[in-house]
């Protein structure tokens, strides 16, 4: 299939793997973080780790939108959805996220009207078809999905819809990366930058990572060869003693981002003073809410939302997994009490969650692809 198979070529993968192996300093261990859950998913789905030498380990980062939603917000959403006048819409990923009284799927089985949508715009269609109901879209995601929420709100305004609102849980990636860089329990050598987020925010926001923390960043695409090439570029920077922001995903990511999308976000949303992230705790200026000029589309103002902070189940170590401190299988409940079928933590829910990706795709004895090491002078 065009535009897909070219990026999954095993021959090219072997060639890149040989170059990567050649860049490893003997005796040195490398820890590279893929920030984005989409990358985590691709890495496991295609078995990319089979191409990497043992000295390189990939650390899964916090960029999984579902994984970082704290339980209190899920409970808030459940509370909103339980209103008999409300139809809640949500992306499929959210449906199995456990709140303290079960997931959206469980609520649906109890009769709550929760509908899965592929695009937030589908919520407007539902709003027009159900004028006597209030449609609340459970908005989640990083800067990747925030523009589509913003455009949906703008369209609802243009269409004069009065029965549509957004329960806004959009978060921003930079404060989370900074929290990880400042965290004392993790030593990372470099970052695979989140490709989809960067499509919107561009590459400049990562410059502080290279400048202040001296860590290389390569913004990476989502096909397996994209990821392998980005790992090569990171290793090359490390071998040459450079720390820069590079853009491997140039075919999609403009250096300055998508100004139209950024404007739409800025027009409809503003930063919250602080927001709770699952596992990472409260991070200041790390999430978005609806601007007061769009308050009639803001479910948090239109409805009473309990806003109670709910602690994660004691056994759950999602926080450590999200920060990359623990590998998924190192969590105490991984694969026994916590499985994709009966998840305790969010990382086991979303296909982008590190635990779900490892459980569904990587739970086996790995066999590395034999690679001829190709040494070139860095």
């Amino acid at each position, binding site marked *: 299939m065009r535009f897909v198979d070219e990026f999954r070529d095993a021959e090219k993968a072997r060639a890149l793997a040989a170059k990567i192996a050649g860049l490893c300093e003997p005796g040195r261990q490398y820890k590279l973080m893929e920030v984005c859950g989409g990358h985590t998913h691709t890495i496991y789905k295609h078995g990319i780790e089979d191409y990497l030498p043992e000295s390189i380990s990939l650390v899964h980062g916090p960029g999984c939108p579902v994984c970082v939603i704290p339980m209190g917000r899920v409970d808030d959403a459940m509370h909103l959805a339980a209103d008999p006048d409300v139809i809640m819409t949500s992306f499929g990923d959210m449906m199995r996220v456990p709140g303290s009284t079960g997931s959206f*799927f469980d609520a649906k089985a109890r009769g709550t009207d929760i509908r899965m949508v592929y695009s937030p715009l589908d919520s407007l269609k539902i709003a027009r078809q159900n004028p006597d109901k209030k449609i609340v879209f459970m908005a989640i995601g990083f800067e990747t999905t925030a523009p589509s929420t913003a455009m949906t709100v703008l369209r609802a305004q243009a269409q004069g819809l009065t029965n549509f609102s957004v329960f806004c849980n959009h978060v921003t990636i930079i404060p989370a990366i900074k929290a990880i860089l400042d965290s004392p329990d993790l030593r990372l050598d470099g970052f695979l930058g989140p490709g989809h987020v960067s499509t919107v925010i561009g590459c400049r926001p990562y410059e502080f990572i290279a400048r202040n923390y001296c860590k290389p960043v390569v913004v990476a695409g989502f096909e397996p060869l994209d990821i392998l090439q980005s790992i090569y570029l990171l290793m090359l920077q490390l071998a040459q003693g450079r720390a820069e922001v590079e853009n491997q995903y140039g075919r999609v990511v403009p250096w300055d981002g998508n100004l139209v999308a950024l404007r739409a976000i800025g027009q409809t949303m503003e930063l919250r003073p602080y927001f709770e992230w699952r596992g990472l705790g409260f991070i200041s200026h790390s999430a978005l809410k609806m601007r007061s000029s769009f308050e009639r589309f803001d479910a948090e103002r239109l409805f009473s939302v309990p806003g109670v902070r709910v602690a994660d189940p004691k056994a759950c170590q999602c926080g450590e997994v999200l920060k990359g401190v623990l590998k998924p299988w190192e969590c105490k409940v991984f694969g026994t009490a916590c499985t994709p079928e009966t998840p305790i933590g969010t990382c086991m829910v979303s296909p982008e969650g590190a635990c779900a990706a490892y459980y569904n795709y990587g*739970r086996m004895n790995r066999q590395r692809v034999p690679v001829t090491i190709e040494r070139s002078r860095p």
Partner: protein
Amino acid sequence: MTTLDREQQVLDRIDRARRRRPKVREERITMSHGAGGKATHTLIEAVFLDAFRNPLLAPLEDSACLSVDGARLALTTDSYVVSPLFFPGGTIGDLAVNGTVNDLSVAGATPLYLTAGFILEEGFPVADLLRVVASMRDAAAAASVQIVTGDTKVVQKGKADGCYINTAGVGVLSDAVSLGVAHAQPGDAIIVSGPIGDHGVTIMLARGELDIEADVVSDTAALNGLVSGLLSAVPSTRALRDATRGGVATILNEIATAAGVGVLVSESDIPVRPEVRGASELLGIDPMYVACEGRLVAVVPADCASLALTALRSHRLGAESAVIGHVTADQPGLVQLRTAFGGTRIVDLLIGDPLPRIC
């Protein structure tokens, strides 16, 4: 202890946890219980098998194989709730006949007679019912079976969605035939009889909710002709399954679990139409889990693989048959996929339900 040893310990612990007796933890039925994946298996084993347990039911094959006064019969039943009722390539009526014929066929039986039960919603257009029934008549004629008894119920508007159909079927088994996924042995070849995922993707697109158009039609078809050709060419065939809900991935897992073997398949060898692959890529679903209604998975001894392929390919419905992998002795219970990219990953049972009501 090295990290690898520790990881292996965890993997062993998970393996033990997965062998535990299944238990339904939910208080209510969710859509996942009907998706053909892990939740369906749990429901069947923990609720139905637990209550009805007997040696004929226990293998959980597509049909029960019975002996009545020396005659060997296969008996099966299936209900159809597909939405929409009419879709490119077929109707709910085609599915109701072909699905039950196929459940008998993959048991190695010659399908003979079907029953048909209808649950109709008040207000359902009679013209639509006539269309459904005509397609059942034609499908039954094509499969050389007769619909010999039936039942009709009507429920109030809103208590059903137009038309649901249940069919049961009976067929005769020859003495020579003994098929079952538990018979798979290391070295056996695994074959699919054509491109996978056509039906599921067709239904999803036919609902018109996704604004995606693709030139795909359902593969619904009766497989009895294809099966009898294969079984006469390769009587030593170990197992056959039709890849409906849960797709080929589910069947591979059933083979691995029932026979206590490993399964290794190669992504590049699995036939998938470009349209189906494209739609699946866009929607983030894996064709391995998407239902077919006219494809079977066959397990045959390694030395019969080419004979089996020739037999399948000589039939119109098996022209694109392919060997997709083989049964292994290592990592019993696990299905592994060699990706086209050259890596390896697990193919587990489906979790959740990306595609409700496809059959």
